[in-house]
């Protein structure tokens, strides 16, 4: 599942976030302050490619996905589809966008309305995006169910969500997203609520859809190991910044940013079982207390957001924002370490 980096560069950019910033104003006692959810983030999804967005809870992964899907409007920066800016304020733009960019939400138990049958759930996007005539809808629904491997489709079409398992529900959610015939699929942790045994099924299904339909995909996850397995490219987020990005193999095998190194050290990796490899030594001299502190998203970002947890922090790190350094094969890291 690894794509050659050269191919990656050549593929057409389809959905882009350019310098996207999101501030979420607070209410009540903290009125006037805001959460700095995203700080000038750039992200590019390419046709036929899977980009994994990795990071801890609260790092802004889901916020970014929501902005890309026009579920929310960015405070600053813009979302571009095929090079053209999408204006979330315009109803026509929004509607057209929903027809091209679809989202699969994390929890299949809450993303399907349990009052509607599968038939109704899948018929709505078919009707709304007007690409299917009313007479063909039933046939299209059965086709969609088969596409997400819910067979025989006729058994599933009249079921209520509560009659389905978590994996089956997530397949319905994916089918609903596919019903709009999108060119981009955004998966907000699409497998994290599922049993470990069916995660791989769903990931393989998504990869298959990518291969067959040439979809661009965003795969949000905590799990950098699954990102390596599944994605062509990985972007690592921390406190609303993308700290490292590049081809999946490159980022997981030769991480450049200290945060990526820590993430990798925290995930079990059979390749790294041998004693004394460098990756395991990463956090040897790190004080546990320092590491426990989460980033302060309320403060205006100054310097590197990871500085107070970073094992390699220098005085400059907490004073000035780090530059982006590019490496071979399109790998980028936002860190002072590589500033010569």
């Amino acid at each position: 599942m690894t794509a050659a980096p050269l191919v990656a560069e050549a593929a057409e950019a389809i959905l882009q976030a350019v310098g996207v910033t999101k501030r979420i104003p607070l209410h009540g006692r903290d009125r006037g302050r805001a959460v700095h959810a995203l700080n000038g983030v750039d992200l590019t999804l390419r046709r036929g490619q899977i980009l994994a967005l990795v990071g801890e809870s609260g790092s802004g992964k889901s916020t970014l996905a929501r902005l890309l899907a026009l579920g929310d409007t960015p405070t600053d920066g813009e979302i571009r589809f095929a090079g053209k800016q999408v204006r979330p304020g315009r109803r026509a733009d929004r509607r057209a966008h929903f027809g091209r960019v679809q989202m699969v939400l994390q929890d299949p138990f809450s993303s399907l309305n349990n009052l509607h049958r599968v038939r109704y759930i899948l018929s709505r996007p078919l009707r709304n995006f007007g690409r299917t005539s009313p007479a063909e809808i039933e046939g299209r629904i059965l086709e969609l169910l088969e596409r997400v491997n819910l067979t025989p489709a006729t058994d599933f079409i009249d079921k209520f969500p509560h009659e389905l398992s978590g994996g089956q529900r997530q397949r319905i959610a994916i089918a609903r997203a596919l019903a709009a015939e999108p060119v981009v699929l955004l998966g907000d942790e699409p497998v994290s609520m599922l049993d470990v045994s069916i995660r791989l099924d769903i990931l393989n299904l998504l990869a298959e859809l990518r291969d067959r339909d040439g979809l661009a995909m965003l795969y949000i996850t905590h799990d950098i190991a699954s990102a390596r397995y599944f994605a062509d490219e990985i972007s690592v987020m921390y406190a609303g910044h993308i700290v490292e990005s590049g081809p999946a193999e490159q980022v997981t095998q030769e991480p450049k940013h200290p945060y990526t190194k820590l993430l990798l050290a925290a995930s079990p990796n059979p390749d790294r079982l041998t004693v004394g490899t460098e990756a395991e030594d990463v956090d040897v001299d790190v004080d546990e207390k320092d590491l426990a502190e989460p980033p302060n998203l309320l403060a205006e970002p100054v310097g590197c957001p990871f500085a107070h947890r970073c094992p390699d922090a220098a005085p400059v790190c907490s004073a000035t924002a780090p530059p982006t350094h590019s490496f071979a094969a399109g790998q980028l890291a936002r860190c002072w370490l590589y500033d010569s």
Partner: protein
Amino acid sequence: MRPDWLGALCRIVWPRNRKVAVGLVILLVLVAVAVVGPVLISMLLGQHAGELHAGGSLEPPSGRHWLGTTTAGEDVLAQLVTGTRTSLLVGLTGGAISTGLAVLLGVISGYSTGKTGAALTAFVNIFLVIPGLPLLIIIASYTQGRGGWIMVAVIIGLTSWPGGARVKRAQTLSLRNRDFVQAARYAGESKVRTVLFELVPHLAPLIASTFLFAVVSSIAAEAGLTFIGAGNPTTISWGTMIFWAQTQGALLSGAWWWFVPPGLCIALVGTAAGLINFGVDELSDPRLRGRRAGGRRKARQVPAAVVEAA
């Protein structure tokens, strides 16, 4: 494609839950009485609600006057049956107006963000703190019984919605951020359709129970208004019956047949509403419906089967 709510309605109309069945039977009997009762009484017993000196003054129940007579010699049964019609009409109209306003204002103020939502919420809150009963009395004494029962029902409906609206608003607030509402947006649904087809069905049990109790409280409010003399004493309803019984000293003279039947009827409507409310949950939970479809006996076996399977 059969709409789901139709199936739900069928299952509510033919309940397998005994409490709901009893409640529905009580309500249906009262409705039947309201519809055909006055005609039947005049045909079979030759009694009319408004007829003075149909019998002696304050006669106890007898073969001719099944529920006795009033001080003016009117037949109490004929009055009760005619009063059922008025009271139920007031209840249903007042309940419908009150519930309709509560749902409309509650859902819109809960769903819309920004200025519209804030303004509506403020509006609801203002009406919430205005004490309902004094307002009701002031408006009712201003109309002085003009407009008959419809006026009374409208006044009751217009003053009793704020509590219900608050509840709908709270529930809407919790529903609007659920994933399936967001997912409906991504599926290209319009705002109105999202609210009507994704959100409101989840409020159905709440709406149904609000409606039931709005009906009961409208009937009680009408009775209360007429009892204190703010209604129109010339219309015949359960409330006016109790009003006349009280002013004519039925309690002192021991004429229980005059005030007990209307009081009992009001209590019966309340009981029926309470019993039906047990079945309302099934409206928005297909899981409960599925269990019902298998019948009572099978339903009891389900937990055992689940335990075995586990």
